[in-house]
């Protein structure tokens, strides 16, 4: 994605540019963030991925100045973040943290209204916005607005956290492991809803996680971090099929065939329907992934699937051979051996 290809949507996200960004904590031998430069497109969903201590949270929290960088610059569109007073800057940026940070002594509606009130919106506008947001995150206002955080489940609380962050229509959202404390089912559901909201609003999202599956599922592009340095900045598929080095390969489990298959869309592997097509072939949606196709094959005992479009019309077919070919063209093992050869010659 380049700037030319994507028009800046005034309702959508901000472009974010990190320029030689560093953070050195006192009494620490290594910088937590080490000379990081990144260009993030407006409306892009970028996930910072890495082991604990890699600097991903520090990096995220420098954008809204919870932490101050010791070097470098951060641009949100045309503004360097230090040109504004920190509270003014933060009111323009949505912020969601793992512990939700909801205010326990305030009702849900008051929690969600926090930023609009700081911005001194009119009361009627705030009330309208709160109802709209609670609907957006799937919490009917008539039954939730007057409750307190302690009356909600963990998943519901994080929905409120999300609504509160979205309240003043920020063009940038910072999310620090927002679903890290939730059970798998709730996490999946919230990931889906976040993607839906992102498709709808198209704000720029910076999202921190150490969960590779979450990163792959949500990201337009993933930033892999180690010891404060960017190891790779690329799409999930690119990172899995072409990891930049052994560290990235190991972190994302690139050798894991199943994981690779869970990232390759069926539509990209399927071939045109030829004479062999059989009306009895089990059908599968083109927007699912190869991993789902294998599942269906094992379940039905059929070695060929009929790939259907959104309306259920068969458009392509997919065989075991197609899958093998798709997986091997994005051959991580070959890349890995090349890398070993190069590093040996260094």
């Amino acid at each position, binding site marked *: 994605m380049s700037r030319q290809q994507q028009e800046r949507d005034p309702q959508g996200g901000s472009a974010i540019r990190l320029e030689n960004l560093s953070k050195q904590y006192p009494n620490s031998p290594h910088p937590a963030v080490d000379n990081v430069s990144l260009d993030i497109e407006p409306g892009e969903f970028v996930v910072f991925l890495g082991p604990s201590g890699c600097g991903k949270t520090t990096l995220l929290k420098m954008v*809204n100045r*919870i932490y101050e960088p010791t070097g470098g610059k951060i641009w949100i569109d045309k503004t360097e973040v230090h040109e504004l007073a920190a509270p003014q800057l*933060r009111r323009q940026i949505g912020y969601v943290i793992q512990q939700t940070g909801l*205010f326990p002594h305030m009702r849900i509606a008051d929690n969600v209204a926090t*930023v609009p009130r700081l911005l001194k919106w009119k009361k009627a506008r705030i009330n309208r916005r709160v109802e709209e947001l609670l609907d957006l995150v799937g919490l009917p206002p008539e039954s939730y607005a007057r409750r307190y955080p302690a*009356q909600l489940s963990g998943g519901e609380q994080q929905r409120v956290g999300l609504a509160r962050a979205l309240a003043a229509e920020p063009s940038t959202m910072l999310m620090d492991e927002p679903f890290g404390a939730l059970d798998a089912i709730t996490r999946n559901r919230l990931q889906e809803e976040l993607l839906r909201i992102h498709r709808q609003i198209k704000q720029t999202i910076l999202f921190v996680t150490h969960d590779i599956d979450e990163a792959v599922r949500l990201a337009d592009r993933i930033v892999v971090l180690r010891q404060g340095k960017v190891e790779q900045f690329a799409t999930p598929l690119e990172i899995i099929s072409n990891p930049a080095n052994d560290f990235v390969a190991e972190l994302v489990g690139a050798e894991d065939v199943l994981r690779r298959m869970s990232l390759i869309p069926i539509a990209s592997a399927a071939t045109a329907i030829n004479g062999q097509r059989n009306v009895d072939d089990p059908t599968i949606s083109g927007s699912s992934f190869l991993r789902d196709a294998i599942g269906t094959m094992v379940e039905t005992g059929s070695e060929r699937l009929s790939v259907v479009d959104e309306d259920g019309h068969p458009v392509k077919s997919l065989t075991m051979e197609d899958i093998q070919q798709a997986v091997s063209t994005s051959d991580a093992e070959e890349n890995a051996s090349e890398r070993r050869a190069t590093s040996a010659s260094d």
Partner: protein
Amino acid sequence: MDFTYLRENPDVVWEHTIEHIQLSLTAMGIAMPIAIVLGILATRILWLTTPIVSIISILYTVPSIALLAFLIPSQGIGERPALIMLVMYAQLFLVRNIVAGLNGVDPATLEAARGLGMNEAQLFAKVWLPLALPVIIAGVRTGLVTTISLATIAGWVNAGGLGELMFQGLALGRESTVLAGVVAVSALSLTIDILIRALERLTPVARAQRAAAP
């Protein structure tokens, strides 16, 4: 038990009770601003927490009669030494609870408040103080109840109040006078305790907790 004195001299007991309340509230009125300053210092400047809380705790271990005796040569007798003693003892409950209340607020909640764009004054008024308030008010309650009972000792240095009544009774060997003082002090403590507990129930945190209780 002999309630003769209470029955025959309710006006005298009432007068002493009013004096007792005045002494206690004056002491609390002086103690509070000092405690707020010390409490905020102890919360804001991390290395000050332990020294401030320790010194106040050590002061509290000095017996009240000994402290008063110690104060008489420099402060004389009357209200002055009594107030100094009461203000010192009240610090323990007030400062300890201000520190515990402010430090007890979840750092994630404060980070969220900052992250949403509250400035420090808004953060304190809208989030930090309201969340610390139940613990702080509980400190005021125990502090005031303790002050009321300690103020009895003030009668020993002629500072007035119900203590004076009791010491008179003791000196004259009149059990009924002592008992009147005891009854009045206990009733006063209990009333204050109930009043401040009612106040605690009005805080936003208490309201949220009641709503969450099934």
